[in-house]
């Protein structure tokens, strides 16, 4: 049963991802992106990371996408004529893709990655208690740094959205 769900949701993730890249209308792209995030949350549930699934829906599909849609509608950009992509970009993208394929194949074909059904460990991210414990013991410093980062981001956004005069001073 889980296998069927895996195939359903992975197809949904990939299809919505292709939709984000291909859609001409930015609002449609954002809607596809919400679809990707929601199916990704479903994949997290399949991996028994329930807390992360909730966070994914709340933060990504909720807050981040609202911000995105707000900005898209605020700017209201007109669709411009598609310009030619340069040859260098195509070459670079295919080299990048080739590297990614080689890396994925080598990771997937490694013997240590093959899981035996009996050897599957207990889900560690299933409950909130070990999560909070880890955050405030092993990962206390990253936790503090992240808090600081959020503060810096807030100050940065306020500074960026201030209207500036030509000499750079705030009005």
């Amino acid at each position, binding site marked *: 049963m889980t296998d069927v769900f895996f195939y359903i949701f992975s197809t949904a993730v990939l299809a919505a991802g292709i939709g984000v890249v291909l859609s001409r209308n930015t609002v449609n*792209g954002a809607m596809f992106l919400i679809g990707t995030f929601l199916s990704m949350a479903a994949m997290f549930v399949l991996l028994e990371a329930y807390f992360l699934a909730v*966070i994914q829906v709340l933060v990504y599909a909720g807050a981040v996408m609202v911000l995105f849609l707000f*900005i898209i509608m605020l*700017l209201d950009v007109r669709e411009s004529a598609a310009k030619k992509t340069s040859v260098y970009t195509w070459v670079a993208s295919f080299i990048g893709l080739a590297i990614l394929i080689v890396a994925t194949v080598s990771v997937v074909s490694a013997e240590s990655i093959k899981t035996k059904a009996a050897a599957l460990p207990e889900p560690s991210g299933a409950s909130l208690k070990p999560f909070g414990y880890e955050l405030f013991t092993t990962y206390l410093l990253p936790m503090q740094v*992240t808090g600081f980062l959020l503060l810096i981001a807030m100050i940065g956004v306020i500074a960026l959205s201030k209207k500036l005069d030509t000499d750079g001073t705030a009005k």
Partner: protein
Amino acid sequence: MIGLEHYIIVSSLLFSIGFFGVLLRKNTLVIYMCLELMLNAANLALVAFSRYHGGMGGNVFVFFIITVAAAEVAVGLAIIVALFRKRQTVEVEELNTLKN
């Protein structure tokens, strides 16, 4: 049975979709959304590794990535709005003042 390798393949496929989006699209907002796609692909790989190896590290890492991505989106969109105010465009081809 679905194993770790299945999740990694899905993750790398999603990453390449986002990668091509970043390289081939010209709209800054779409490029930004494709960046989020790539971040999510990395998240999926981390959670899958964490699940199949029984550690907590991957999960906590994804938690931090989501936090940083939220901050990054706020700052990035503020930059895009500031650029739009100054230049009246969000197309990368037209935002080439630093070139040459």
